């Protein structure tokens, strides 16, 4: 195999890995959209908030320390040496559940019958609010997140691929980040758990009932409000997983919330209502933008990753307006 061919394979592999990361964020969107018809723009900020909270617990920061110092002139920062990973993750999950409950109680409950677009705007407001409160609670500086997931290039894979090249060519092996491989594994695990949960538990069945038809679900005695809290909690946990993966990769800071924007084309490509759609959409977007950048990028000045995903999604939408796996849109007058 020629180095060019191997390089292309490397780009595709890395694209698949990046796609998995996008899917992780898109998954949270799909869960909430299915259960409540809300297009939750705040999903990316939820990932940021979860990651910030996790780092805060790990390192033992005092919430709102900056604000308190500012008002009272005190000098507090940390309450102790921090805690171990598992405890911190559990506490963060707890925080996300409380957050889900608060969102339902304070916001969603009051706007439940509004048009979808109003609900969407409300989640944009929520995103701004969380962005502000996350930074106020834990500080806006760049934080490193390490929960013990290995990262860096895989030497074994580099050695293996080095032998693939045909005679007479110089080739240094493929680079694959171990973190990405782990992320792919965790994503598979997450989807499996979510599928099992929604297929085989009573709550899961209730979730699917609500997704099918709100009113029918209400008439058979499913509490819509508790379902919403559950769905937002699950989305919060998915956000935490996405936050951990993205945070370990590139640090925890404001730009983490922008991954929500990257998840949007994944969503419209796969369809808002389909979990497999989110995964496959993520993979298509990931591979597509990496290949485009690899082949066309140098010709047009690079940085095409900023917009290619959206244009690709737009192109697909021209042929299938409901996304690849979305439910057929039936409109009635």
């Amino acid at each position, binding site marked *: 195999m020629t180095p060019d061919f191997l390089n292309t394979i490397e780009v595709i592999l890395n694209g698949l890995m990046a796609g998995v990361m996008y899917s992780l964020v898109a998954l949270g969107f799909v869960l909430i959209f299915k259960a409540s018809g809300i*297009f939750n723009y705040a999903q990316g900020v939820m990932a940021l908030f979860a990651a910030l909270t996790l780092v805060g617990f790990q390192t033992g920061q005092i919430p709102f320390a*900056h*604000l308190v110092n*500012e*008002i009272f002139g005190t000098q507090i920062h940390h309450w102790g040496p921090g805690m171990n990973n598992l405890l911190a993750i559990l506490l963060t999950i707890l925080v996300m559940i409380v957050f889900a409950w608060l969102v339902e109680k304070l*916001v969603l409950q*009051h*706007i439940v019958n*509004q048009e*979808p*677009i*109003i609900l*969407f*705007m*409300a989640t*944009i*407001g*929520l*995103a*701004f*609010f*969380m*962005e*502000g*409160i996350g*930074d*106020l609670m834990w500080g*806006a500086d760049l934080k490193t997140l390490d929960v013990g997931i290995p990262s860096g290039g895989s030497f074994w894979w580099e050695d293996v691929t080095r032998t693939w090249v045909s005679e007479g060519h110089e080739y240094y092996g493929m680079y694959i980040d171990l973190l990405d491989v782990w992320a792919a594994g965790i994503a598979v695990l997450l989807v499996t758990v979510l599928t099992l949960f929604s297929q085989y538990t009573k709550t899961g069945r209730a979730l699917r009932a609500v997704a099918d038809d709100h009113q029918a679900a209400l008439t058979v005695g499913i509490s819509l409000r508790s379902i919403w809290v559950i769905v937002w909690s699950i989305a919060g946990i998915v956000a935490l997983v996405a936050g951990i993966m993205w945070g370990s990769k590139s640090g925890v800071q404001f730009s983490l919330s922008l991954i929500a*924007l990257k998840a*949007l*084309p994944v*969503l*419209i490509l796969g369809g*808002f209502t389909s979990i497999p759609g989110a995964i496959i959409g993520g993979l298509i977007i990931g591979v597509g933008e990496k290949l485009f950048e690899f082949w066309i990028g140098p010709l*047009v*000045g*690079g*940085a*095409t990753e*900023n*917009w290619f995903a*959206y*244009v690709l*999604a*737009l192109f697909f*939408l*021209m042929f299938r*307006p*409901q*996304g690849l796996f979305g439910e057929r*849109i039936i*409109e*009635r*007058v």
Partner: protein
Amino acid sequence: MFYRESGDFKTSYIQDQQIFPILQDRVFVTVIIAFAFLVVPFLINDYWEKSVLLPVLIWSLAAIGLNILTGYCGQVSLGTGGFMAVGAYASYKFTTAFPELNLFIVVLLSGGVTAMVGILFGLPSLRIKGFYLAVATLASQFFLVWLFNKVPWFYNYSASGQINAPERLIAGIAVTGPNAPPWATYLFCLVFVVVFALVAKNLTRGRFGRSWMAIRDMDIAAEIIGVAPLKAKLSAFSISSFYIGIAGALFFLVYLGAVEPTEAFGIDKSFLVLFMIIIGGLGSILGSFIGAAFMFLMPVLIKNILVNGLGWSPDIVAHLILMIVGGLIMFFLIVEPHGLAQLWRVTKEKLRLWPFPH
């Protein structure tokens, strides 16, 4: 008691069709416009020009533009920042290529160019609806900003990649550039805002506006009763982009003077304008003004109180402002989903009956 339609008799069709049918409205609007044109230019100073009046005027124009598309025609767009960039770069290219061209014409031409681009990016709306369209408009936002960053022709091959507004005179008085007096830039923007706000007000109550609203309320039903979706949607996209392009051109030429596309026309600007029309009121020209003023001035006010008044550090205040803005958006959507303009409508209803309760 005084503010009502009854008793305000009209004896001709012309009178019946005027923009403001109520006498008090006409008087009020005339007084405001007269005040803005005749009094403010004598009072204005540099601070008021740069930090309050110019940005509010320009954002109002952008908000009217987006309101035409989103509020009246129901097509959610997240590409406002990109279209403003088109207006800014078009005005830059026009004014540097034809230095003698009158600045009014430059700005109008930039609006025209943006309208063309708007039609192009509006084409998907014929097939895609709702959230799918909102995400699709993000393509225009990111693609256009990327384009202005990467193609040197747009910024005349300048080394910094920035564009700078050259000094241009109208009737011997500088309107752009560092030497422009505050009253000149203010009046320049004011002319555009007043003229195009009245045009928009008229458009939205005419045939165009009604076809937009029909499409917004239910596009299939509108199609059945004979509203052409192609014409309605694309006209909304082009007219909305025209307004946003003019706002972008003014934003660059008069207000900022030098811009770098990623920073000046990023996605946050798209959201800002969207918030303005939500808070102000979807489908209301008055609401566009209220929303723009509110969304721009509220953070300035909070910042002034906390940073200058209480001496807090600016970055903490910046986060607080984010929280407050987000909280307010949710609050408004819960309490008054139709925006601040709805409060005025409610007041109007009350005034009609006053002093009787029913």
